[in-house]
């Protein structure tokens, strides 16, 4: 189940060990971890996925696997996240059934609507703000389009792209159910502190006290 209150999704990247990152993010209060690593071998991905799933369940968080439906099914992940270049939602649903969450990346209201029509469970929407994590071929969407998309679809939206503790709350008030970050946590000197700060920001809590 997607959390009903504003939540943080932390996506792994290739700069630090995904398991270490996941553990720190979970300590900081992330409710969803997405294992995303485009260059690792299948056996390495599987091994990481097993560890991350275990950690996620310890912290009652969701373990999502990017792109690889096979790995997601093999480790019984909570879900799989599909980009526009990945397997389609309908094919993935046939394999994964209804217990497995299917998230889809969308960068326009049309893509979000299409994913909803095809049976996705949530939308990763962005990038909202400029981001260094990935080279993008289009300009940031901004919160107006986020708002418009949130009004258009009934699925939970996770806003991504240039999210930080300063702008996170605005994303939630613009209709996002959660926020997703990559480098804001992975490239922080203190990934669990960075996660905690983001969790506080979306829950309007003070993050004065340290962990």
């Amino acid at each position, binding site marked *: 189940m997607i959390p009903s209150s504003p939540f943080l999704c932390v996506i792994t990247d290739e700069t630090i060990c995904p398991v270490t990152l996941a553990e720190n993010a979970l300590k900081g209060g992330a409710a969803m971890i997405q294992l995303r690593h485009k260059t690792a071998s299948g056996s*390495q991905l599987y091994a990481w996925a097993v560890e991350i799933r275990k950690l996620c369940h310890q912290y009652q968080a969701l373990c999502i696997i990017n792109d690889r439906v096979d790995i997601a099914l*093999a480790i019984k992940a909570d879900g799989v996240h599909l980009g526009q270049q990945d397997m389609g939602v309908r094919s993935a649903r046939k394999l994964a059934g209804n217990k497995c969450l299917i998230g889809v990346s969308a960068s326009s209201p049309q893509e979000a609507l299409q994913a909803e029509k095809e049976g996705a469970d949530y939308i990763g929407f962005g990038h909202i703000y400029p981001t260094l994590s990935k080279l993008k071929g289009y300009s940031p969407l901004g919160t107006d389009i986020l708002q418009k998309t949130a009004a258009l679809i009934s699925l939970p939206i996770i806003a991504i792209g240039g999210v930080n503790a300063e702008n996170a709350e605005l994303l939630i008030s613009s209709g996002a159910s959660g926020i997703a970050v990559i480098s804001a946590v992975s490239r922080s000197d203190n990934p669990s502190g960075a996660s905690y700060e983001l969790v506080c920001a979306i829950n309007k809590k003070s993050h004065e006290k340290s962990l």
Partner: protein
Amino acid sequence: MRHKQKNQPPLPRLYLISNGNGNSDGGALLLEQLHLLTAFLPCIIQIREKKLEAKELMDLALKARAAKSSDKSLLLINERADIALAAGLDGVHLPEKACSAMALRTFAPGLIYGCSVHSALSLRIAEESGADYLLFGPVFDTPSKRKYGPPQGLENLEALCQATSLPVFAVGGINPENAARCIAKGAYGIAGISIFQDTTRFIKTIEQFNIYLNP
């Protein structure tokens, strides 16, 4: 092991691997090969297109399945058991560093699983994971594999075949002339990429292999 348990027909002895250029030709060569294959020897065809994104792979897998009209031929895909299952293919070929067949069988028990092996250690891992067949090479010199060092040679092929009861396909620099030597060392069948690329000679090549593989 699917084949032993379910009393499946034996695996074909000829094994064609796609050349990895599906990103530039849209899979045209593979589809042409599949059309040509129909009336001939049963064959294993592996879609191995590492440059394609999953969506494109899925599209190619569906097209390949539609193009394959012989029930005796088997269509496999490299590594992606999810795509094999979603596109209705027969199986998956797993590189040494892929997720194990045992883990993949938990959700895709009906697929054929093949494993690349290059060493005694990877043989043991493949056997323990329940592989249906092994792919071993490069047996002979082949330009695309020179960066990995000298070929394995017939001696190593023979040693592997003696060490396992699984069917072994020899790959790497195989042609109709040296195929018989691989079979004589215990290989179950042979696999190739470049030998099958000239579609004007495709049928002739297959017929020549046929002489050695099914005497």
